[in-house]
């Protein structure tokens, strides 16, 4: 049967994820060390898991409000105020979502009309451009430069704005580069954003994994930006809760009204146990100053320094990543494409990395290496990459 008649043309036109093919090869190599993961190597802290177990045993198996439990939204409001200086009303500006990904999707679908352009700095997370297309918009990728630590500049933003530009995606701290953006750069961007009347969808799911002494600055905390930002965050990275699928979106009430409309018809609500677990994470954090996060961040930071130093030592050009848990070294010197480099590294030395091209065309010449991996494995992986480079 010919299904093409039934399939949406713009969805069909989006290519399959480049990561998928790679994943299939790694699956056949059980001994390979993977630096290709995109999630913490910690399991969710025990007290958080236990809260979900208790909730199940207590028979909490019902729907919640579309927005998520009020008690959870209250905790979220407190958390983002305390950690990032953001003020959103838990009544009508904070929505609990199925991970940060749903928040991004809702924001795009709530705002975009056919033909609206969305500026997407690249390299960046694989979902942004497809998300824009699925929402009927047109993604406009901007290349960010390793020389500038992959930060989006006001000049580059300005150059990509047309009369159809409606929104900008801000992907910092960044997956795959590990880049962060500083306050001064954000302020310059703000002036362009306000002058051209744009909305920002700021994906800050890695905010807690920032290793610079200044810490993370949210664009929504800048004067004049709260009213034009959809702030996206989640529990996956900060609390090692990827599989729970729980996150949240914050936006001014008029924007949120439309986002909730989509969420209530498409999703209904985030799973109740994930909500209970998330609430426990924040409640305990309120008391112990988010010790869960501190412990994990310190451990990532140790491994970050080790991997960054290791890559530099073997002669790979690499800027110092100050966020998330990725390094993004350049492999241009080898003369191989990212794809070939990763394929050969996997086959010849059994180490899996992700080709930079999976995160946008400008990722060519780079590979993403995740350091959220056990120390002994990380050490062996670095040795093997070094051997591989010498064998070229």
């Amino acid at each position, binding site marked *: 049967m010919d299904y093409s008649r039934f399939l949406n043309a713009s969805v069909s036109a989006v290519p399959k*994820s480049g*990561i998928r093919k*790679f*994943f299939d090869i*790694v*699956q056949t190599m059980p001994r*390979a060390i*993977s630096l*290709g*993961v*995109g*999630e913490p*190597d910690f399991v969710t802290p025990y007290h958080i898991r236990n809260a979900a177990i208790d909730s199940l045993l207590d028979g909490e198996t019902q729907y919640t409000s579309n927005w998520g439990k009020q008690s959870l939204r209250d905790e979220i409001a407190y958390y983002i105020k305390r950690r990032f200086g953001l003020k959103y009303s838990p009544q009508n500006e904070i929505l609990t979502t199925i991970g940060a990904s749903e928040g991004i999707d809702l924001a795009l679908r709530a705002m975009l009309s056919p033909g609206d352009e969305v500026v997407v700095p690249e390299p960046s*997370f*694989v*979902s942004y451009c497809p998300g824009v297309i699925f929402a009927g918009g047109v993604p406009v990728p901007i290349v960010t430069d390793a020389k500038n630590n992959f930060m989006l500049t006001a000049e580059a933003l300005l150059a990509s704005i047309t009369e159809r530009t409606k929104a900008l995606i801000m992907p910092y701290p960044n*997956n795959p580069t590990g880049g962060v953006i500083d306050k001064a750069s954000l302020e310059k961007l703000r002036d362009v954003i306000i002058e051209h009347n744009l909305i920002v969808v700021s994906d800050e799911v890695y905010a807690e994994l920032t290793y610079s002494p200044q810490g993370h600055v949210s664009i929504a905390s800048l004067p004049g930006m709260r009213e034009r930002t959809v702030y996206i965050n989640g529990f996956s990275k900060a609390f090692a809760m990827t599989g729970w699928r729980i996150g949240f979106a914050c936006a001014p009430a008029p924007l949120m009204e439309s986002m909730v409309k989509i969420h209530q018809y498409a999703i209904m609500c985030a799973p109740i146990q994930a909500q209970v677990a998330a609430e426990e994470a924040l409640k305990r954090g309120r008391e112990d100053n988010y010790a869960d996060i501190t412990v994990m961040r*310190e451990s990532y930071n*140790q*491994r970050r*320094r*080790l991997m960054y*130093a*290791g890559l530099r030592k073997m002669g790979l050009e690499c800027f110092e990543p100050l966020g998330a848990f990725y390094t993004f070294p350049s492999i241009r010197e080898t003369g191989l494409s990212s794809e070939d480099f990763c394929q050969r590294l996997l086959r010849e030395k059994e180490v*899996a990395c*992700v080709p930079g091209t*999976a995160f946008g065309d400008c990722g060519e010449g780079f590979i993403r290496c995740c350091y959220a991996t056990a*120390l*002994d494995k990380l*050490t062996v992986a670095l040795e093997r990459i070094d051997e591989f480079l010498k064998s070229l």
Partner: protein
Amino acid sequence: MENMKMELLQILQQDCRITLEKLSVMLGQPAQVIAETLDEMEKSGVILRYTPVINWDRVGKERVEGMIEVRTTPQRDQGFDAIAKRIYRFDEVKSVYLMSGAYDLLLLVEAPTLKELALFVSSKLSVLDNVVGTATHFVLKCYKNDGIIFEDEPKDRRLAVNP
């Protein structure tokens, strides 16, 4: 500095054979500073020894471990310290803890055979003047020791590659 010490100890607790160079990179401190900190913690008795955690069950050597609850009469001016000192000098005794609750001292003991362990209790321990009573429990299996799980390691459950 205190924070660095804690991080250092936590890393060593996982792997005390880690090189100074690696510690220096991981903690973002000069190797000299790490070396001095280690030296100081060794001298002040924070770090007592660098030992492996051994799963003896896999060595295949016959060996018996037990926990012994000991009830004692505390001594004037010395409390439990004098009797604890008498007990910890025995080679069979691996650990000694002063406990709250139904008994006073908890010993972790080890001997090559069941018979020798029993003999230790009857001929060396019970006969001490201030020992009022003992209860011996034999270890059947060790599941976890010093934070390390002795069963086969759980696999990394994560997908090998994802965005």
